[in-house]
């Protein structure tokens, strides 16, 4: 045995218990006689135990990349390399998975082979932004690992002030709630900005996330600078026979207390004959009743998307949710997709020119005001963008008449277009 294992009394305590243990996995690699990664994983365990003992981290950043790209690799150099020399470099490659994270076993085995050869043998499925994280390799091996993955059809994801790896839910592939072609939306958007992804030159990161319906399984409103969420415009579908079955199975009281009275806009009423009255005009497509009564209720046919912008986490003004920017748009024809791409382009262009360094889209909107942002990207104000109009009289309304005129003109145009 080339190198003795470090004592890891604390880590060992993470091998018990019913949940799969990453320590057991890393130990397997550290005891993998003859494998190139074995020494690295032995020292990785040593450093990690040291962190557990001292309650501190010991990695620092640096600059490592692949030829042609400015980002996508997270470089890690050890601060305790004198004690744990074999893991002194432990860089991670962020690789974008197929949209929706679909794999067949052949593909996965191939990915394993690459990382067994060029890396640590440790892979995370997936990072919180959706990358496959090939965790831990040396500076020397970064390029060769990437080349092999790239040849397989895989590309680095984002890091630094760049367009980031995006995520889309399983959606249309296996979900009846899906109102969009999530993978297509994701690929249309992200693949349009590969230059901004691979050569980080934006003020800060920019993330796309795509959910097929308002359940928002991709957490897009809060975790994406641009969130695309499927929705529908016509009436939801009601199978009254299934409604009655559900009511008789669960009881009227159950349905009233758990479905009817939970509708956020009082759009549901249970009729005396146990059929359901839906006030579709006031339904906000929250999904609740549809989630509960999966067989009886389903989304409508006139599908499209809502776009929100500005979600992010804490830095520097506190967490932000995205704001509705496009209340509804159809996404069927190529022209529709082009329009969506155009909106993303205008947004990223405006962001690039107007955001301060290390300022996210949401923070920029907060600083300059939603109205200025909308003007910047060429989108008209719409009451669906707000939960409520202003509450404070501190506003200067000199140009009220002009602004009102814009609205009336727009409405007239819409009416003309509709007829």
């Amino acid at each position, binding site marked *: 045995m080339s190198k003795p294992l470090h004592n890891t009394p604390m880590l060992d305590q993470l091998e018990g218990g019913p949940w799969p243990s990453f320590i057991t996995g890393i130990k397997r690699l550290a005891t993998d006689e003859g494998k190139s990664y074995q020494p690295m994983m032995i020292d990785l365990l040593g450093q990690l135990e040291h962190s557990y003992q001292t309650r501190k981290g010991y990695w620092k950043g640096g600059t490592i990349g692949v030829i042609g790209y400015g980002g996508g690799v997270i470089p890690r150099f050890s601060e305790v390399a004198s004690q744990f020399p074999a893991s002194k470099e432990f860089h991670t490659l962020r690789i974008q998975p197929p949209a929706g994270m679909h794999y067949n076993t052949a593909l996965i085995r191939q990915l394993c082979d690459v990382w067994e050869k060029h890396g640590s043998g440790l892979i995370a499925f997936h990072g919180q932004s959706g990358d496959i994280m090939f965790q831990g390799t040396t500076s020397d091996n970064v390029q060769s690992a990437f080349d092999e993955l790239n040849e397989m059809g895989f590309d680095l994801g984002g890091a630094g002030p760049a367009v980031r790896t995006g995520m889309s839910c399983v959606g249309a592939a296996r979900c009846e709630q899906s109102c969009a072609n999530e993978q297509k939306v994701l690929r249309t958007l992200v693949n349009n900005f590969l230059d901004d992804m691979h050569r980080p030159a934006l003020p800060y990161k920019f993330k796309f996330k795509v959910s097929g319906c308002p359940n928002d399984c991709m957490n897009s409103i809060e975790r994406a600078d641009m969130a695309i969420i499927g929705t529908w415009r016509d009436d939801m579908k009601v199978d009254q026979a299934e409604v009655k079955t559900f009511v008789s199975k669960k009881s009227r009281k159950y349905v009233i207390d758990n479905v009817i009275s939970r509708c956020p806009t009082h759009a549901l009423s249970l009729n005396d004959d146990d059929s359901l009255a839906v006030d579709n005009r006031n339904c906000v497509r929250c999904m609740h009743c549809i989630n509960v009564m999966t067989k009886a209720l389903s989304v409508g046919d006139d599908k499209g998307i809502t776009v929100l912008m500005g979600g992010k986490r804490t830095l520097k003004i506190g967490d932000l949710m995205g704001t509705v920017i496009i209340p509804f748009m159809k996404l069927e024809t190529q022209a529709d997709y082009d329009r969506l791409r155009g909106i993303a382009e205008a947004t990223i262009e405006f962001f690039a020119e107007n955001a301060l360094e290390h300022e996210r889209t949401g923070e920029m909107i907060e600083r300059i005001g939603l109205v200025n942002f909308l003007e910047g990207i060429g989108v008209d104000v719409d009451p669906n963008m707000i939960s409520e109009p*202003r509450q404070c009289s501190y506003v200067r309304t000199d140009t009220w008449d002009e602004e009102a005129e814009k609205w009336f003109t727009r409405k007239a145009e819409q009416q003309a277009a509709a007829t």
Partner: protein
Amino acid sequence: MPPRMPIESGVPDPFQYMHPIMVRNYGAWKHHERPRPGVLCHTSKNGEQIWTIRAGTQRQMDVYTIRKLCDIADQYAEGYVRFTIRSNIEFMVSQESKVAPLIDKLTQEGFPVGGTGPSVSMIAHTQGWLHCDIPGTDASGVVKALMDELYEEFIREDMPNRVHITTSCCQINCGGQGDIAINIQHTKPPKINHDLVANVCERPSVVARCPVAAIRPALVNGKPSLEVDEKKCICCGACYPPCPPMQINDPEHSKLAIWVGGNHSNARSKPSFQKLVAAGIPNNPPRWPEAAAIVKKILRVYKEDARDWERLSDWVARIGWPRFFELTELPFTKFHIDNWRGARRSLNASTHIRF
């Protein structure tokens, strides 16, 4: 003779002026009914009943009108009245039989009976040109003109829930929040009479009053005065009361704005502030027809579309603001998007959208 010093008696004890049934059953009421608009009948745990007949007044009353009300109270009621927070007068009687004759008499004398239950009650009233030193419009006139238009809504109870309207004659807003509020909204920065500032205004306090720090001390024509950064100024008029030479009122550019959804009650949802729905409305005495038309339009769609017990704010919460603008045919503009403190909270951070 030494000057008479005041007796600092404060708030008078009300029991000396209260209807005896109310005194006897103080704190012991059981339930109430509204036998007809303008009439309440309260039943006490002791089995006693009292009928209240509510009538509208003009608030600013001459002694003749007041005495006429007293005469009616003495002849048709039992000599006891109270006023509501909305300047309605209430007559209390011990017998149902007195209700109808009292109503007839009041109606005949020009006092509308109503304002109870789901009606449009009297508008909360401020001072305006009649008395205040800073008004952009009148108050009594606005109220009179509007109540003339809302007369039927006052004497009937056919709104979804009670409607409380307020007016304010400057942006200080003594009128408070309302289901509907008609308030002054200035649109031009103050015009400064620099000759007067030094004598009349304490400059540091004026500077401190500005909510957007648009005022700075300046020397104008060699005299200490104030300067306004007109790009920053939001034309709120807060500088005008402490510094009358900063004239904010303007016959043309002091406009009216209409706000809806203010709700003080804790019923159902928590109390809520009113929201801007229309501005740029001409301040058009003596009858303010443009403002009246918008108020009536809002009330009409509310009445048609809201459900029982929905206050205006509850109704809009259910149908959403986009539909509110659609139904009222009011324009939605960039001014509706809040940009004051905490404005982010007012943005739609969800896919909750009605189509």
